[in-house]
Structure formats: structure tokens, C-alpha cells
């Protein structure tokens, strides 16, 4: 905390967990158990799919179990397993330069596909490739198909090159859903598509999305009751993955909101792994993904300095709800299309820049920090320009750190810490000059 500013990094203490976090943990455990059961008794069909632009509500209409490779990669990274996975994939021919998420997944598969819960995950019956906002996804599932030789269906989501969703884009996505994706899911599952079932899930999604936005926007308060980056990762977990559209997901957000609301009433800051933050010294906006291999250490570098992240772009990769989008049961397929088209990395650079600029103003942040991921072109290419633009537009200081999502070789604690410390000094100077 701010009071123990220069304390050495001590990660031995137990992490404090809120009730909502425990709830989420249980949900994730349940899904991994289903995947393990599917492997053992082959009763449920298994669909692998990605987070950004996921069609979870649709997938659930077919009584199949969803597996999200990125979630596996990040969970494995937190368990310090991905270093070995990445190396395994490189030994098998993957280049050192490419996206480490892909390599962590391929490495895990080559080492027996043992999931983060320690049990073997079922092989896919269908690879549902929707590659919103990143071309690497396309190759990722081609690589998986190359190994599993299973059925694959792809949903091509056009990029918002001009910063808008056109009717032509929407029509294209809807047509693919109707004529490619739904038939593939029917084929795999043997279950006929029922649009009313989809509507039900979408109705449930919208409820959770309302609450998620409420939680994220609570960071406008001072002090912010949440951390929108490190904490934000947990907050978006259920809506970004296998749970959006379920009553459990809605219940999670109800519980989460109760906790956040309680902190608001008490005027408290966010909960960190070492308890409630006592003093909010810096309010930051963060662009870019997280580092999972050293997440706790990374987070500690923030909360030890009293820095809280009030808004982040990473919590918009699996859905951009703050700008008003909600899944809509009255326009089921169209709203799935708009969801996919609207995810953060599917926005063009000017839209991304504007969004961050708005965050700095709306959340009264002190500055912008970019966590640039070495192996993620989708996020990283163009970030330096975004940083300069935002500095110019807002007059607030911006800084840059470089890490990786799941490759521990690219997390240098001393470099990151030095950068952060000089950044906080920059913010201080700016303040005293003002």
C-alpha cells in the first residue's frame, strides 16, 4: 500500500479474495470440470472459441461446452506454466517472434492438453473461429485444426477501418452466422437451432452487461472503489467467456455490484491482493493487455505507489459495453454481429485514441500508461503514436512499459519498476507545476 511504499516485493502472503471472486472461481472450475468430463465420457461436444467476438449465447443454444484457449493461456501463465509451454512450441517449430498466446496454447496441447485445473481438456469437436480484431486468431485455429484435424467454422468480422459499423458489415456477419456458423454448430451437436433460446440468453447477457458497466463506471468516483485493469480482469471474466448469458453470470455481477457499492458507501478504494487500498495517489488509464506471468508483482508496483487504474482498454476486448452496446433479444443475430464488430481491437486507431482520451477526461485521470506487449501486433502496432496524440490532446503525461502476456522471458521487474517510478515522478512534477 502507499504506506509501505518502498517495501520489497513480498508475494508470500495469501491473496485476499472477495465473495464474487470466489463465485467466479467456482464457475471457472465448473467449466473445466465439464471439459474434463467431456474428455472422459464423451457425453458433451466441445467447441473451442476465442474471447474477442465470442458467440457464447449462440454456442449455449447447442448444449455444447465451450473452451477458450486464451483463458487457458492466461490461467496457465498465472500458474507459471507458460514459460515451458512457449518453449515447447518453439521446439516444435514456432518462431520466437510470433504471438506467445498461440505458443502457450500449442505448447500446452503438445504437453498433453492438461488444463489449468490439472485435468486433461477434451479435444475439440468444432473450432469456432471468429477473429475479431486480430489476424493471429485465424492462423491460431488453422494451427489447431492442423493438429486435431477437426471440423472448423469461421466467422469473418470486418474491421472498422473508417471507425463505424456499416450495414454491409452487419449483413455479412449475420449471413455467415445463418449460413455457416449455425449449421456447423447444428452439425456438431445434433441440436436444432432455437432462436427463442438465443433470445433468452441475450436477455440474460444484457442484465449482466448493465451491471458490469455500473461497476466499471464506479471508477469515476474518488477514491475509485475498483481497479479497472488488474481488478478489471476479474470483473470482465464471466462476460468475456463461457458464462455470458447465464443466470450464474448475472448472479456474479449482482454480488460484485453489492461489494463495490459497499466500498463506495464506505468511501473505500479497490481491493488488492493485500487488502483494501488505503490511499489513492495516482489515477491512471492503461492501454494494452496485462502481464500474467508476474501479475501480482506487476500489480504490487502500482498499489505500493498508490496508483489505481480507473479505466483500461483491455477490459473492452471481449465487449465494449460502456459505449452503450447491449446484446438485444429483439434483434438476436444483428446484435451478435454488432457485438463482434464493436470489440476494442476491432476499432481503428483514431477511435481507440479517442476512447482513451475520453477516459482520461471522464475519469479525471492523471495520465496514460501503455503496457506494450512484445508479441501482440494487434494492440502494439501504433501505440506510440496513440501515446503522443493523447499527450498532445490532454496535456497529461503518458508513459510506456514493455512486457508480454504469457512469456516470462519478457518481464523484467527492474525495468518495469524503474519506468513506473519515473512516470509517477513525472505526474508529481506536472501536478506541482499546475
Amino acid at each position, binding site marked *: 500500500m502507499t504506506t509501505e511504499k518502498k517495501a520489497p516485493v513480498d508475494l508470500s502472503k495469501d491473496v485476499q479474495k472477495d465473495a464474487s471472486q470466489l463465485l467466479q472461481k467456482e464457475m471457472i472450475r465448473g467449466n473445466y470440470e465439464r471439459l474434463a468430463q467431456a474428455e472422459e465420457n464423451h457425453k458433451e461436444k466441445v467447441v473451442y472459441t476465442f474471447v474477442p467476438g465470442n458467440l457464447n449465447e449462440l454456442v449455449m443454444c447447442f448444449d455444447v461446452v465451450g473452451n477458450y484457449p486464451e483463458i487457458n493461456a492466461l490461467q496457465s501463465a498465472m500458474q507459471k506454466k507458460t514459460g515451458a509451454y512457449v518453449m515447447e512450441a518453439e521446439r516444435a517449430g514456432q518462431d520466437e517472434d510470433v504471438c506467445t498466446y498461440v505458443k502457450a496454447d500449442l505448447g500446452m496441447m503438445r504437453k498433453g492438453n492438461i488444463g489449468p485445473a490439472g485435468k486433461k481438456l477434451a479435444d475439440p469437436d468444432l473450432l469456432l473461429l471468429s477473429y475479431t480484431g486480430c489476424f493471429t486468431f485465424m492462423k491460431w485455429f488453422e494451427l489447431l485444426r492442423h493438429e486435431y484435424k477437426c471440423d472448423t467454422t469461421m466467422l469473418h468480422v470486418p474491421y472498422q477501418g473508417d471507425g463505424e459499423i456499416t450495414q454491409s458489415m452487419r449483413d*455479412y456477419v449475420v449471413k455467415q452466422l445463418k449460413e455457416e456458423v449455425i449449421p456447423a454448430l447444428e452439425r456438431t451437436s445434433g441440436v436444432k437451432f432455437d432462436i427463442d433460446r438465443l433470445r433468452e440468453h441475450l436477455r440474460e447477457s444484457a442484465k449482466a452487461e448493465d451491471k458490469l458497466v455500473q461497476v466499471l463506471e464506479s471508477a469515476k468516483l474518488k477514491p475509485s472503489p475498483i481497479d479497472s485493469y488488474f481488478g478489471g480482469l476479474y470483473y470482465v471474466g464471466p462476460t468475456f467467456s463461457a458464462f455470458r448469458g447465464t443466470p450464474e453470470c448475472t448472479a456474479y455481477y449482482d454480488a460484485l455490484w453489492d461489494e463495490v457499492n459497499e466500498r463506495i458507501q464506505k468511501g473505500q478504494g479497490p481491493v488488492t491482493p493485500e487488502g483494501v487500498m488505503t490511499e489513492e495517489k495516482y489515477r491512471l488509464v492503461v492501454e494494452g493487455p496485462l502481464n500474467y506471468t508476474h501479475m501480482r508483482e506487476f500489480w504490487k508496483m502500482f498499489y505500493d505507489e498508490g496508483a489505481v487504474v480507473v479505466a483500461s482498454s483491455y477490459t473492452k476486448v471481449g465487449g465494449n459495453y460502456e459505449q452503450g452496446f447491449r446484446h438485444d433479444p429483439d434483434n438476436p443475430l444483428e446484435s451478435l454481429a454488432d457485438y463482434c464488430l464493436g470489440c476494442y481491437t476491432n476499432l481503428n486507431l483514431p477511435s481507440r485514441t479517442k476512447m482513451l482520451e475520453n477516459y482520461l477526461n471522464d475519469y479525471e485521470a492523471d495520465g496514460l500508461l501503455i503496457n506494450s506487449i512484445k508479441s501482440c501486433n494487434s494492440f502494439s*502496432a501504433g501505440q506510440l503514436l496513440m501515446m503522443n496524440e493523447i499527450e498532445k490532446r490532454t496535456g497529461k503525461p503518458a508513459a510506456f512499459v514493455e512486457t508480454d502476456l504469457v512469456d516470462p522471458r519478457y518481464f523484467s521487474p527492474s525495468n518495469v519498476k524503474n519506468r513506473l517510478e519515473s512516470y509517477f515522478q513525472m505526474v508529481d512534477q506536472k501536478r506541482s507545476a499546475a
Partner: protein
Amino acid sequence: MGTQEIIERCEAIHEDLNFTAARDWKAAEPGRHVIGHLPIYVPRELIHAAGMLPLGIYGGGDQMEVIQGDAFYQSYICRIPRSTIELALTGRLDFVEGMLFPSICDVIRNLSGVWKLTQKDTYVRYMDVPQNYDKEIGGRFYIREMQELLEGLEGISGRKVTNEDLLASIKLFNVNRRLINQLYAMRIEQPWNIPVTEVYLLMRAGQVLPVEEHNVMMTDYIAAIGDVERPQKDNTKVVMNGMFCEQPPLNLIRSIELSGCYVVDDDFILVNRWLREDVKEEGDALKNLSDCFIDHSTRTSATYEPSEELKGAQLVEAVRKSGAEGVIFAAPSFCDPALLERPMLQDVLDANNIPNIAFKYAENTGQMQPIREQAGTFADSIKLWS
């Protein structure tokens, strides 16, 4: 005109980072416009039909010092976006009124946004192409994309583009495609007479010159090939793959040949070979372009291959058709598409007993010796074991 004269001209065009040939074309008549595009594929017929010159932009090569561009990109991003923005920031593209950024990868995609933020007077369009190869789905979407591009171009020229204009352009580009295919076929027959560097320079010239002029140049070159007879060597025939975007330096391409390889197929410049068949010359032009795209596109790392059985099939076909004895994978450092694709293609080649090697480069790679040695050893080992 002899081949040497033609190639000298091409070399001058290749080295000219001010794009004088395109500038001259524009200055020759009032109301002319130049539209730049990044690599892989754009329907250049549309630009031509709008009375404009499509200008292929392939980074700054090894002759340009990148200074400002480095402030835009982290060290772990390939080089082409930084040298391309350098071209703009140093005024070398000040005569270009529009820029198209094809759907190839996240870097080029995001470069379209860099352009929007920094080059505010330029018409900027991200050119999406369908990854869905059903005419009623992807085809329709693509037609709409092309219509939007036409609207953008009409906004620059103030003139409507008719179906006839488009069909006339299609005819010219069909001729261009045929000439290029003819040259590639001839190289397979007599690679010693048609060095890879010459083919490459001809391709690059076609990115700067108007198609009418390039057609004449190609015709002249093909006609003049018979006039020279160069010594035939016992080189190993190879296909090169992975260089479709950031280009290797000319010296690197030369080194491959000097190391004892005849390059009999490659993917250096794909825009003019992307459609593997002629586009229909009558009827609805946009539909014809779309149909041809759907049915006869080149498969590269930037495209999704819907069928596992067909993965790598075009590469194997290129090897078989050209009589190549091996494949050299060369990819730009940090190029996700090419590098992620490579292991899958290598598996397919291995399954077909086609020897292959791989290395990485950057557009400003200066050290040729290691690459030459690697390619030389590869060529020797093929000769030894075949």
C-alpha cells in the same frame, strides 16, 4: 529494346524513392491522381477505371535511412510500417492523394489508422476482402467494399466511374496478368536466361508505371529474351515463399541465385498475380472481379484456408509445376502471418518429401554471407542426395 536496357530502367525505378515516374505521369495532364496501396492485394482495376494511377508502396528498402519512423514503432514490429511512414513524413508521398491499406495483417491494418491520424489530407481506406469464399456471402460483401472504394475515388476525381470504364480496365489488367504468367512460365523453362532479379525488377516496375506502359515493357522484355543466351549452370531449382509484404533487399535475392539456386517461383509481389485466372470481360464488372476473387485467389498467410486438405496445396502445386527441387522460406522478422503459416507449410512439404529451409530477413538486411551460405548448403545437399 534489349533486356539489359529494360532492366536498367526497372532498376532506376526500383531505387527511386521519390517515385519520379509516378510523379511525371501525374504532372503530364491536369486532373490526374495517384492512389498508393500497401502490399498484398487491392483491385487495381478500380483505381485505373477512375482514371488514376495505382502506386504499389513496398516500404523504403535498404537505401533509406529511417529516422522518424522509428519513433512510431517498437523494435519488435517489422520494418515496413516504419519505413512507409518515413516515406510520408519526408514528403516522398506528397503527390499521393489516396492510400489503400489491404487486409493483410494487424500491422498494416493499424497503419491505416496511423495514416488517418497523421496524413489528414489523404483519402485513407482500409480495404477489406472477404475470408468467406461463398459468392452469396463473401462475394456480396466484397462487391459492397469495392463500391465504397469507387465512391471514395469518385470523391477525389469528381467523375463517375461506369461499368464500361471498369471493363476496359479489366481487359488491360488481364493482359498484364497474362504477360506476367508468361514470363513466370518462361523462367521455369530457362531460369539461367531469366534471372530472379530481373523478374523481380520487372514486377516492381509494374507497381509504379501505368499498366499500359508496363504491358509494353513486359512485351518488349519477353520478345528480347531470345536475344541473349546466358551460361546454364547446374543450379538447384527452388521456390521462395513468405516475402509477400516487406520485401527482401535486391542483394538478398541476388545472393540466393549466386549461392547456386534458380528461383523458379516466388511470392514477392502478389498484387498482379493474386487472381490466378482472367477476370471476365463482359457483364457486371464488380461482380466479375468479385467472382474471380472468390474462385481464383492466391492462398497466402493472409488468407484463411477453409479446407485442411487444401492447406499448402498451392505451394506444392507451385513446386510440381515449376520442377523445383526445394523450397526456401524467407520471412521478415516479426511477421506473424508468414511465421505462423510456415510450420504448417513445412509439414505439408515434408509429407510430400520436398526439402525446405527457412530464414528471416529485414528490408535493410545488410549481411548476405550467412544467407548465401545457408542457401548454398541447401542447394548442395539437394544435388548430393537427389
